[in-house]
C-alpha cells in the first residue's frame, strides 16, 4: 500500500523549520525596530524636556527682571551685574524697540544695536507686541567662541523693548545634578528601560534608576564603556552594552557636559518575540500535524477506496467469468449430422457479457428446431435468467412442437417469475426436413435473412433473388408483457436455400467513428458470398470476419451470435410393406428394381445409386429370406432411402417376428475347406462384410435392421 503521507510529513517538518526560522528572524527584526524607535523617542523626548526646562527657567528669570525693571530703560552695569549675580545667570541685556542695547552685564554691549544679519536678529520679533518670549539654543559666543551660551528674550509689555538673559552651557553643567537628576529618576523608558546620566569628565552618575541607585555611583560601575568600539554617542545609533549585568540596547547623547544613555533591556521586547514565536510555533505545528493527519486519513481513505474498487473489480471480473462460463456451457455442442440440412452457429461473447444464446435439437426424425435469443440482462443474473429461458423454450417446444405455442407458453412462465425485470428477444423455428418448410415465431428478434440458392434461378433469369430479410411482423419481446399470443408463420426453403439468423451484436457493432454495422451492410456481405462458400460454417465465419474488420479497434459492446441453416435436399425415402413369404420376397426384389432399375434412371447422380442395385438385392435376399423362413413374421416393411451425405442407400428391414439380432451371432469360419464348411450363417456374414454400416434395434415388438451401403 502507498504511504506517501510520510513523505508529506517530512516535507511538512522541513517547511515548519524554515517557516519558524523566518518567523523568528522577522520577530527579531520587529523587536529591534521597536526597541530602536522606543530609544529614539525617549532621547528626542529627553532632549526637548532638558532644553524646555532650561528655557522655562530662563524665561522665569527674564520675566522677573522685566517686572523689576518695569520697562525699556537704560540699565547700569552695576545693576546688570547685581541682576546676574542674584539670578545665577551669566548675562543680561535690555533692548529698546529699535534693538538698541540700553544696558548689559557685558560692558562691551551697551549702545550697540541688533543688526539685521546678527544672530540676535530673531529677538526683534519680541518688539511687535505679539510674541512674549523667544529662546535660542546653546551656541558659541560672538566674542568668545569657547563659551557656548543660550539666550532667552522676554518682551516688556506693549512691545516696549525686551530683556535678554543668557546662560553658559558650563553653567548648566554645574547645575545639572541639582536641576536634572530628578528628571532622569522620574523618566520612564518602556517598562524596564532606564536612563543613565553621568558627568563626562569624572563619570559621576547624577541619575540612576531607583533599583540600581545604591549599587553604582560612577558610570564605569554600571558596565558602560565609552571606549567600546560599538558605542556611538550620536543619539542615532543603537548599540549594545552590558549594564548591571543585563545586555541592553542603548542610545547615547552628550548634553551639557553629561553623557545621557537610554537603555532598554532586550527582555522587554525580545520576550514578546519569544512568546510570539512560541505561540506561532505551536499553532503552526498544530496546523501542520492536522494537515499531515488529514493527508494520511485521505490517503488511507483513498487506499481503502482503491482496495475496495480493486476487490469490487475482481469480484465483477469473477462474476463475468462465471456468467460467461454459464452462458458458454449452455450452448449445444456439435452440430446435427443430416443429409438434408446443414447447420452451423457461433457465439462470440462480449467482454461485458451479453446474454446471447442459440440452440437446436430434433423434435423427431423429420423435424428439427433451432433458435437464437438475446437476453437483456448482464452478469450472473442475466446468465441464470438465460439458462431459465433456454430450458423453458426447449421444454415447451419439445412438448408442444409448435414455435408459436411454445413462445406463448414460455412467455407466460417468464412473466410470472421475473423479479429482475429482464426480457429477451427470440426467434424460434422448426424445420420440416421432408418438405423444407420452416414454421417459426418471432419474439421481437432481428429478422433473419433468407438466401436463395443460386442454382434455383429459373433459366433466363440472370441470378437468384438477392438475400432478403424475413420482414414478417414480429411479436413482442418475451417476459415483457403477460398474455401475449405469438403467431405462427412459415417460410419455405428449397434445397440449397439458407436461412441466416443473428443477434443485434452483428447489426449494432460499432466502428471507431461510432457508425453502426447495420442491416444494409449485413445484406451486402451475404450477397457477396460466392455460391461455393454458401455453406453455414463459411457464412458464419465470413459475417463474423467482416464485423470484426468493420469494428477493428473498437471494443466489442455486445455478444455476436450467428446461426445459418442450409436446407440441402428433400429426403428420398421409399417405403413398402410385403407379406413374409417367398412371394413377398420376390415382390420386394421387384420393388428394388422398380426404384433403382434402368427404367428409373433420372440423373447422373442417380446412376451412382443404381450401381448399388446388385448389392442391395443380395442384402434383401439374405435378410428377407431369413425373415421369411425363420422369424415367424406375418409381413415386413422395407424403407429405402437415397442418402446424399455420404452418398449411398440405406435399407431398413422392419418385421413383426421373434426378436432376433443377427449382429449378435458369431461369424462362421470362412477358412475351412469345402467339405468341412457348415452351410448357413454365410448370408448374414456377407451382408455384414459388404455393408458400410449396419445396426439392429428392437422397438414396438418389431425387429428393425438397418443396412447402409455407400456408392
Amino acid at each position, binding site marked *: 500500500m502507498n504511504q506517501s503521507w510520510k513523505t508529506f510529513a517530512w516535507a511538512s517538518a522541513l517547511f515548519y523549520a524554515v517557516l519558524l526560522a523566518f518567523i523568528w528572524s522577522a520577530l527579531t527584526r520587529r523587536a529591534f525596530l521597536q526597541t530602536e524607535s522606543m530609544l529614539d523617542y525617549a532621547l528626542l523626548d529627553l532632549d526637548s524636556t532638558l532644553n524646555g526646562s532650561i528655557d522655562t527657567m530662563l524665561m522665569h528669570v527674564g520675566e522677573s527682571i522685566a517686572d523689576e525693571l518695569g520697562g525699556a530703560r537704560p540699565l547700569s552695569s552695576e545693576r546688570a551685574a547685581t541682576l546676574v549675580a542674584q539670578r545665577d545667570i551669566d548675562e543680561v541685556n535690555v533692548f529698546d524697540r529699535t534693538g538698541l542695547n540700553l544696558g548689559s552685564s557685558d560692558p562691551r554691549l551697551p549702545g550697540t544695536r541688533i543688526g539685521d544679519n546678527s544672530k540676535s536678529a530673531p529677538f526683534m520679533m519680541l518688539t511687535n507686541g505679539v510674541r512674549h518670549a523667544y529662546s535660542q539654543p546653546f551656541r558659541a559666543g560672538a566674542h568668545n567662541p569657547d563659551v557656548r551660551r543660550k539666550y532667552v528674550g522676554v518682551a516688556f509689555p506693549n512691545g516696549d523693548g525686551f530683556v535678554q538673559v543668557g546662560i553658559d552651557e558650563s553653567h548648566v553643567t554645574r547645575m545639572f545634578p541639582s536641576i536634572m537628576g530628578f528628571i532622569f529618576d522620574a523618566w520612564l523608558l518602556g517598562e524596564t528601560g532606564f536612563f543613565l546620566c553621568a558627568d563626562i569628565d569624572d563619570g559621576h552618575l547624577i541619575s540612576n534608576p531607583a533599583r540600581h541607585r545604591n549599587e553604582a555611583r560612577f558610570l564605569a560601575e554600571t558596565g558602560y564603556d565609552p571606549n567600546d568600539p560599538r558605542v556611538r554617542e550620536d543619539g542615532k545609533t543603537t548599540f549594545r552594552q552590558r549594564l548591571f549585568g543585563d545586555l541592553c540596547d542603548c542610545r547615547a547623547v552628550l548634553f551639557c557636559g553629561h553623557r545621557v544613555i537610554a537603555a532598554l533591556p532586550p527582555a522587554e521586547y525580545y520576550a514578546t518575540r519569544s512568546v510570539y514565536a512560541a505561540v506561532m510555533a505551536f499553532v503552526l505545528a498544530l496546523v501542520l500535524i492536522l494537515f499531515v493527519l488529514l493527508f494520511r486519513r485521505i490517503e488511507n481513505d483513498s487506499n481503502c477506496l482503491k482496495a475496495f474498487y480493486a476487490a469490487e473489480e475482481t469480484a465483477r471480473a469473477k462474476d463475468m467469468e462465471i456468467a460467461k462460463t454459464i452462458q458458454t456451457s449452455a450452448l449445444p455442442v456439435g452440430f446435427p449430422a443430416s443429409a438434408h440440412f446443414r447447420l452451423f452457429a457461433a457465439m462470440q461473447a462480449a467482454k461485458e457479457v451479453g446474454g446471447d444464446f442459440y440452440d437446436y435439437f430434433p423434435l423427431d426424425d423429420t423435424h428439427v428446431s433451432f433458435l437464437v435469443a438475446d437476453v437483456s440482462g448482464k452478469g450472473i443474473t442475466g446468465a441464470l435468467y438465460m439458462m431459465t429461458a433456454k430450458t423453458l423454450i426447449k421444454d415447451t417446444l419439445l412438448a408442444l412442437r409448435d414455435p408459436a405455442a411454445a413462445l406463448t407458453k414460455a412467455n407466460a412462465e417468464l412473466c410470472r417469475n421475473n423479479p429482475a425485470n429482464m426480457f429477451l428477444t427470440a426467434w424460434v423455428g422448426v424445420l420440416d426436413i421432408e418438405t423444407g418448410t420452416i414454421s417459426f415465431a418471432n419474439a421481437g428478434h432481428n429478422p433473419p435473412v433468407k438466401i436463395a440458392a443460386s442454382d434455383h434461378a429459373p433459366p433466363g433469369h440472370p441470378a437468384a433473388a438477392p438475400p432478403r430479410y424475413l420482414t414478417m411482423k414480429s411479436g413482442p419481446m418475451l417476459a415483457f408483457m403477460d398474455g401475449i399470443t405469438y403467431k405462427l408463420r412459415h417460410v419455405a426453403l428449397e434445397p440449397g436455400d439458407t436461412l441466416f439468423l443473428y443477434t443485434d451484436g452483428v447489426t449494432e457493432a460499432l466502428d471507431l467513428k461510432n457508425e453502426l454495422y447495420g442491416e444494409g451492410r449485413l445484406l451486402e456481405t451475404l450477397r457477396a458470398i460466392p455460391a461455393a462458400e454458401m455453406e453455414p460454417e463459411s457464412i458464419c465465419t465470413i459475417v463474423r470476419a467482416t464485423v470484426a474488420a468493420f469494428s477493428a479497434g473498437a471494443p466489442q459492446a455486445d455478444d455476436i451470435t450467428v446461426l445459418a441453416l442450409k436446407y440441402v435436399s428433400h429426403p428420398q425415402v421409399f417405403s413398402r410393406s410385403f407379406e413374409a413369404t*417367398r412371394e413377398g420376397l420376390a415382390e420386394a426384389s421387384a420393388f428394388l428394381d422398380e426404384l433403382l432399375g434402368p427404367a428409373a434412371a433420372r440423373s447422373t447422380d442417380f446412376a451412382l445409386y443404381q450401381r448399388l442395385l446388385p448389392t442391395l*438385392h443380395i442384402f434383401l*435376399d439374405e435378410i428377407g*429370406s431369413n425373415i421369411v423362413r425363420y422369424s415367424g413374421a406375418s409381413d415386413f416393411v422395407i424403407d429405402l432411402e437415397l442418402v446424399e451425405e455420404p452418398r449411398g442407400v440405406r435399407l431398413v428391414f422392419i418385421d413383426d417376428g421373434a426378436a432376433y439380432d443377427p449382429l449378435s451371432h458369431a461369424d462362421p469360419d470362412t*477358412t475351412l475347406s*469345402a467339405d468341412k464348411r457348415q452351410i448357413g450363417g454365410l*448370408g448374414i*456374414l*456377407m451382408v455384414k462384410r*459388404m455393408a458400410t454400416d449396419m445396426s439392429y434395434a428392437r422397438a414396438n415388438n418389431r425387429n428393425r435392421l438397418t443396412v447402409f451401403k455407400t456408392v
Partner: protein
Amino acid sequence: MNIEKSLEDGKLSLKIDGRLDTNTSPELEAELQLDGVKEIAFDLTDLEYVSSAGLRVFLTAQKAMMACGGRMTIANPNAIVKDVFDITGCSDIFTIV
C-alpha cells in the same frame, strides 16, 4: 435367371445368366445332375449377383466333384460375385479361371 447347359465327355458346362438367389438357386440345383460328371465349368459372365443361396449350390457342386476326384471351374465372375467369393472365403476353395 437363365441357364445354358451342355454336357460333353463328362464335362458339364453351365452358363448362368441373371441373378442367383433364394428364388433362382433351386433351378440351378435342379440342373446339376452330376451322375458321370467329372468336371463342371461355370461361366458367370452374365451373372448379375449371387447370394448365399446360390453360393450354397456352388459349394455343394464343389464338394461332389472333390468326392469323385473331379474338377470344378468358375469363369468370369463379375466384381460383385468375386467380392462375395472373397468375403465368404470361397475364392480359396473354388478354382476361378
